[in-house]
């Protein structure tokens, strides 16, 4: 009985001290439909940037061709070059909870749970969500959307010009 009580107390304390961690990051990424002779779905990294010094504060998702027989897709990870310099090259791939397959054109709705991965340890504050795309025989683009971690907020949107469409971020 006594041990049960202390467990309960502990759980209660954890919830009370860090309510922000219960929030999730909702992201919608529009992959544009491109009329080109040779189309490959883009490699995309979704990561968090500290706006003050442009360092990375965590990687949420990397979409690439991990099933590629020759190089497991890793050969082209460097092409998402900002993410690669700041975060990717420190990681090993495939990365649990981060690696994913490339996605088709259209809006991609994503929910990143605050209780998992990079968000779990993220301190409340101002950040940029960066969506960085690199397409084989295509271009490269990074779209930044500011968000405040620690309390629910209104959705914010930024639009890419070439390799990415609208990126919308909200903390719920």
């Amino acid at each position, binding site marked *: 009985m006594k041990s049960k009580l202390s467990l309960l107390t502990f759980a209660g304390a954890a919830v009370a001290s860090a309510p922000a961690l219960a929030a999730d990051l909702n992201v919608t990424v529009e992959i544009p439909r491109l009329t080109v002779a040779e189309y490959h779905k883009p490699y995309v990294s979704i990561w968090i940037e500290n706006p003050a010094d442009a360092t990375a504060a965590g990687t949420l998702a990397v979409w690439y061709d991990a099933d590629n027989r020759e190089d*497991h897709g*890793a*050969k082209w990870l*460097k092409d998402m070059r900002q993410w690669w*310099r700041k975060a*990717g*090259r*420190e990681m090993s791939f495939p990365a649990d909870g981060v690696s994913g397959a490339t996605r088709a054109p259209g809006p991609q709705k994503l929910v990143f749970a605050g209780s998992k991965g990079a968000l779990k340890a993220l301190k409340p504050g101002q950040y940029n969500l960066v969506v960085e795309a690199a397409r084989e025989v295509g271009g490269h683009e990074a779209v930044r959307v500011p968000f405040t971690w620690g309390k629910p907020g209104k959705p914010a949107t930024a639009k890419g010009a070439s390799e990415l469409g609208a990126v919308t971020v909200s903390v719920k």
Partner: protein
Amino acid sequence: MTFKKRLLAVAAVGVALALPMSASAHRGWLLPAFTTLSGDNAWVTVDAAISNELFYPDHRPMRPDGVQVLGPDGAADKIQNASTGQYRSTFDVQLTKPGTYKIFTASNSVMASWTENGEVKRFRGSTEDFAKQVPAGAADLKTIKTASRNETFVTRDKPSTGALAPTGKGLELVPVTNPTDVVATEAATFKFVLDGKPAANLEVTFIPGGARWRASPGEIKVKTGADGAVKFTLPEAGMYWVNATVRSGETGRGPGGPGMGGPGGAPGAPGGAPQGPATPLAGNGVSASYTAVIEAQRP
């Protein structure tokens, strides 16, 4: 023509063949196709040449024989699939380990004159052969010592410094910013050491590639501080040729342009044998040149 005179003429031709680079703008370079790679199946292909314009092979190939590789752990690695064409050599390096590789040539040579039995003797060759062939304590000994390095760097996954430790010989680059981590429009810092000590007040030149499509060479000159460090910001993304040269005393060749860097630039270089009677060197001298190709990545 006496036999002696003929020998002298041959020797003069040999020297002229060995040093065409110093009199003009010929530049030696090792140009990797990529400086940043990812994944465990990474290979990089490298072009090696001596050219006027950067980076177009328009003069001579650099011989791949003298090209060395240091892996991320500082251990010697190898080049593969080497071949030499009219204007350039090409070879591959397999990046079997994560980290920064150094691909380079390095040479040390000595020109010497001394007197033996009333006759002036000359030597030209490697530091090792100098020690073997020139008698210790030779009379009227004068030496001109030359050290040159020509390098490039390639990183697979996370950069490392194991391959970048200076040897303490000649002019060398010591990374503050890893040479594969230079980003256009962002400040970077390199340090230069001469025989292991800070190379203060050294002029370092950065020349961007793509010369054919620019009206001016676009070279950037910066000077090291007392600690041998130089802070620089490269304006545009692309490959850059980096060069610095230190000279003191006699050069044995008159005023020269930027160093060609690397032994590959000396096809037909004479061997290390003493070369019969000749005029003595005017005095002692030391020269050291450092050349590298680095990439300024897109921001």
